């Protein structure tokens, strides 16, 4: 057995990989060898730690020193100081945005970002080496499968999931136990278990992180589900845009087969189960369950009307049980710790924890997992570290293109499925995009609708034609050509689309528009009536002006203007010709006297 005195954990998730963690790992290995430490110090590539903002992240154990934004050239210093001489490299240690406190002598769990979190689905992400099944086993891996197969009946497994109150983490929030029960009740010669890893909401990346950081958790849960409903085959439908996740899943499936945790006669109980991967080409609609199953079958990814529900007639016309990645990531823990343990967390109707992907105008961009019922304010300010550059919070968008924007008045809303719907948004897959005073809410609505129009499969008219008409109206408004009655037209169209579209994509597509009208109607009205964008975001509705009092006539703006719109003589106040102005903002950036502003 190889014992090392120190482990260097480098994040190998997509976020940190894109900021160069692969080169870091290579450099660490070279330098450690060069210093003759390769028998004492081990480098491990883990999944995502969640604090992507501070990436690439490196943690050195046993001290638990948290280094952030590590560059290749910093590696030499960490090796020669910390690993060789045992002195922490203070200037690379993570420091908190809000408190500027360094964690040098604190455990990871004491950092503000982690302090309020409770990690169940992400428990192994950033802790284990996802490409090594032994490490997963060491953290109670496959114990739940063992427990289910050897000590529980199928009914007991389903009952446990039902009692836990676990609901689908992909967005709908349907009780997971019920889904399992329906699929178990269907009679057929063949049933399927499927995993929806077609994560499509802009800004959401929790499923990717689970697959990258803890792929065996999903495999184990799918095997448990297969046992519970009587299925022997499983499919994971994952986007081809997630190459690291796909690679780690393939490795994990291979290792699980080698150990006999997938395949024939698992634990000699007579239960057979195996899993295949299917790659999606990135169509948003394929995250919808019926379209996803058509795509697995090799057909065009288009939704079909329900009923029949997948639990009755799904994949290859056989009963199929489809759950989201994050839902599966909770299953093994529920079987191991019991339904009561899980149900003790969260709110009355939403149990357990939820992972959120924080993005947009927020200091700690990253992944967080909190108990259901945690107020938005805690997530955004205490964990997320608040809004950068001293700007004012305006809204938070939850639920991606199917969700809505919630204003500052609702910051104290406890986050769970029902509260978010009551507030006019939805949980969705858990993306949270924070917006500050510079974001125009009409333009945000236009952005999300632009996305759904692009991604609509075109099968049903309300979605194909209706969302396009809504987008046209929104584009008119942000271009300063809005008319009286546009808001009412939008509301009318939205109502019709919601009531008549075939699948979830269309039924929820108007939500970003409706919620912004509900909470930010004054911004719509300002665009339409006054032809002004209150956030000074919409280019067609703003002008750059020079304040003659503040202008020193340095000519910096005139020199940088690509359109030749600025005129004036040296040491005299300049002025901008609105007819020539391209509204690029270059002059404003260049001005050292703060004389240029948007009106």
């Amino acid at each position, binding site marked *: 057995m190889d*014992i090392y005195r120190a482990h260097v954990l480098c994040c190998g998730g997509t976020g940190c990989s894109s900021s160069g963690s692969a080169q870091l790992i290579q450099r660490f290995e070279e330098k450690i060898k060069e210093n003759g430490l390769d028998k004492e110090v081990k480098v491990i590539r883990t999944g995502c730690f969640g604090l992507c903002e501070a990436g690439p992240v490196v943690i050195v154990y046993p001290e638990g020193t948290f280094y952030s934004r590590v560059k290749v050239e910093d590696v030499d210093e960490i090796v020669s100081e910390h690993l*060789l001489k*045992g002195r922490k490299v203070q200037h690379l240690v993570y420091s908190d945005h809000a408190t500027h406190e360094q964690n040098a002598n604190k455990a990871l769990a004491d950092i503000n970002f982690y302090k309020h979190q409770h990690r169940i689905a992400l428990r192994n992400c950033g802790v284990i080496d996802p490409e090594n099944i032994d490490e997963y086993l060491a953290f109670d891996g496959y114990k739940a499968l063992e427990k289910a197969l050897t000590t529980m009946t199928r009914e007991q497994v389903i009952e446990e999931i039902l009692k836990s109150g676990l609901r689908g983490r992909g967005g709908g929030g349907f009780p997971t136990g019920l889904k399992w029960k329906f699929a178990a009740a269907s009679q057929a010669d063949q049933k399927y278990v499927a995993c929806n890893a077609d994560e499509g909401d802009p800004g959401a990346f929790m499923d990717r992180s689970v697959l990258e950081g803890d792929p065996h958790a999903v495999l184990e849960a799918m095997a448990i589900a297969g046992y519970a409903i009587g299925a022997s085959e499983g499919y994971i439908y994952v986007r081809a845009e997630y190459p690291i996740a796909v690679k780690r899943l393939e490795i994990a499936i291979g290792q699980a087969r080698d150990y*006999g945790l997938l395949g024939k006669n698992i634990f000699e109980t007579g239960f057979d189960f195996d899993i295949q991967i299917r790659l999606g080409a990135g169509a948003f609609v394929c995250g919808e369950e019926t379209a996803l199953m058509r795509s697995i079958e090799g057909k065009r990814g288009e939704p079909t009307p329900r009923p029949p529900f997948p639990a009755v007639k799904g994949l290859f016309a056989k009963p199929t049980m489809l759950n989201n990645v994050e839902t599966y990531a909770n299953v093994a823990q529920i079987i191991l710790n019991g339904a009561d343990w899980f149900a003790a967390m969260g709110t009355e109707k939403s149990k357990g924890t939820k992972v959120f992907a924080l993005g947009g105008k927020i200091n700690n961009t990253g992944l967080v997992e909190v108990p259901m019922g945690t107020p938005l304010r805690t997530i955004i300010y205490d964990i997320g570290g608040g809004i950068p550059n001293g700007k004012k919070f305006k809204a938070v968008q939850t639920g991606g293109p199917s969700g809505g924007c919630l204003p500052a008045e609702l910051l104290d809303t406890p986050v769970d499925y029902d509260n978010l719907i009551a507030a006019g948004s939805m949980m969705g897959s858990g993306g949270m995009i924070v917006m500050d005073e510079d974001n125009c809410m009409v333009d945000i609505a236009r952005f999300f609708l632009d996305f759904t129009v692009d991604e609509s499969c075109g099968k049903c008219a309300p979605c194909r034609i209706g969302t396009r008409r809504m987008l046209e109206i929104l584009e008119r408004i942000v271009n300063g050509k809005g008319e009286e009655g546009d808001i009412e037209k939008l509301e009318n169209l939205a109502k019709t689309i919601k009531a008549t579209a075939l699948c979830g994509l269309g039924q929820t597509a108007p939500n970003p528009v409706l919620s912004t009208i509900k909470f930010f109607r004054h911004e719509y009205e300002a665009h339409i009536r006054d032809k002004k964008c209150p956030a000074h975001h919409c280019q067609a509705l703003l002008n750059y002006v020079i304040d003659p009092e503040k202008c020193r006539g340095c000519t910096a703006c005139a020199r940088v203007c690509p359109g030749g719109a600025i005129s004036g003589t040296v040491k005299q106040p300049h002025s901008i010709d609105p007819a020539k102005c391209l509204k690029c903002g270059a002059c404003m950036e260049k001005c050292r006297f703060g004389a240029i502003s948007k009106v």
Partner: protein
Amino acid sequence: MKSLAELEAIRQKTLNRINLRQEKEGEVTRVVIGMATCGIAAGARPVMLAFMDEISKRNLSHVTVSQTGCIGMCRLEPMVDVIVPGQEKVTYVHMTPEKVGRVVAEHIVNGRPVEEYTIGAAEK
């Protein structure tokens, strides 16, 4: 295919290997070796390797080995602190790889510090 017992064995073995990543204060015995220039010059590295070797031979999953800087008494290097939870810290001085076996066996495993190697004995 692995049997249930084999899986359990893999679990235990791996846990020993990765135990230092779990932040469990109060359960872990820490061996801290002074490894500044003075310590390294006096031969701290072979001492540390001897500790790691002994710990892995005995499968002691609750022990971590780590380094620290100069403790200030360079003439007594190599120095090693052994911190058993619930007990007072014990500082060993003038350590050699040969002395390591006794410290692990008597102090870390059986809870009785090796008095004659400690700083108290050296300073008498």
